[in-house]
């Protein structure tokens, strides 16, 4: 079982969270020229590599906040967690 440190609530069990997918995906900015390719990359195309993966989790059975988690997709080691509006870098 994963143990995820919610930046709001502290270390919690995976059972309290639901997964939200790749957090590095950016929605194209509105009110400017957007190509089909930009939309495809936002809606469908994913890197999904082995190794470090920045992803969204929802603390559904806790504070109900969305958070970002950096996790290794082959070892499940969690390197860091942060609030959803914190910078990825």
């Amino acid at each position, binding site marked *: *079982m*994963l143990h995820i440190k919610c930046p709001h609530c502290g270390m919690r069990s*995976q*059972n309290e969270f*639901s*997964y939200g*997918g*790749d957090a590095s995906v950016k929605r194209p900015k509105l009110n400017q020229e957007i190509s*089909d*390719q930009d939309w*495809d*990359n936002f*809606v*469908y*195309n*994913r*890197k*999904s*590599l*082995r190794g470090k*993966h920045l*992803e969204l989790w929802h603390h559904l059975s806790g504070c109900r906040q969305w958070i970002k988690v950096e*996790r290794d*997709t*082959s*070892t*499940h080691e969690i390197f860091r967690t942060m609030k959803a509006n914190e910078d990825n870098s």
Partner: protein
Amino acid sequence: MQKYSIFNLIKNAFSNHINWDLAWKDPTPKKEYDVVIIGGGGHGLATAYYLAKEHNITNVAIIEKGWIGGGNVGRNTTIIRSNYMHDDNALFSEFGMDLWRKMSQDLNYNVMFSPRGIINLAHSDAQMNVYARRGNSMRLNGIDAVLLNREQVKEVIPMADFSDNVRFPIFGGLMQPSAGTARHDAVAWGYARQADSMGVDIIQNCEVTGFDLEGGKINGVRTSRGNIKVKKIGLCVAGSTNILAEKLNMTLPVETHLLQACVSEPVKPVLDKVVTFGAGHFYISQSDKGEMVMGGDLDGYNSYAQRGNLPTLQHVLTEGIAMMPFLSKLKMLRTWGGIMDMSMDGSPIIDKTHIEGLYLNCGWCYGGFKATPASGWTFAHTIAQDRVHKLNAGYSLNRFNTGHLLDEKGLGTKTWIS
């Protein structure tokens, strides 16, 4: 190639079975091939077999990082079915059903195809309506489908929970009598043996490290066992699709997720159908050895781990026990996991790509095993003729761009959501 038959079996019994030929060779990679298939799983092996058999292309190598049949073809729950509603899925799968029926004879290898039937249980009136619609669509495409009411389901699987006080009572179910199971390892081995006998090189323990492109065309593949010159490459690597796509600077509508399965201790024959729970994600069948073979949801987050996590397994088995309470008395024998190439609409991709000579076969989600023969057949056609066959025309890569999604389950892009 030595034919497998009762006579050869008896003959070899006199020499304690030590004189059988090897089922396939262990060749050193040549410098050049006409076609290289990356991935020695069921689909890759089938592709090589049909390239040789249907298109007479035998200067072919299969490159496999591990060993053949060590990935998802050896990790699935062996279910074979064609109970799809959409035409593209239905016609493709039903074409595959024909190949399954002939497979043991075709490959001279007993794949133990057992058309025992599959029942999808319904737990509400609305679900019965949905199943009636799907059943009608199937029948229009020439696939057998029978809508069963509660009493009829009870006759077939009396061990399911038909008591009154259950959260998800059984209203009925949709049965495809011609669906079933097969011995998954035999499928890989049977294809490998036949492909090898027709001249295909099966190269194991050989990892792809890069690709050689020249003017937007495939010119070769670099591997841990040397560089190979080749003009046509078929990518057939399931859960590792994204890793190889990155080496080609491609980003695909595919995510890699982990799916678990498990078997119980072997028990006497109790279940002679494949059954799926309709109020969640759980499926079960009984193997010839007597084990109850079970599976269900993905673990739910991107994973290359090839081994699962307990919360999902617990969740899946809770559904199983809700459906068939006797399961709670069984001991678990084994659990395992495989990594799935989850496409963004739940349907696969068998297509050409923008790189000339690169062909893509991926996105099988958790339905890859049953598609093995049809996938190999159509992929071989696509590679040999350099154009898609009408059977895999719907499985195009650019459907995500044009909006022609094949969203069989209506799950949208989050196919990993349970």
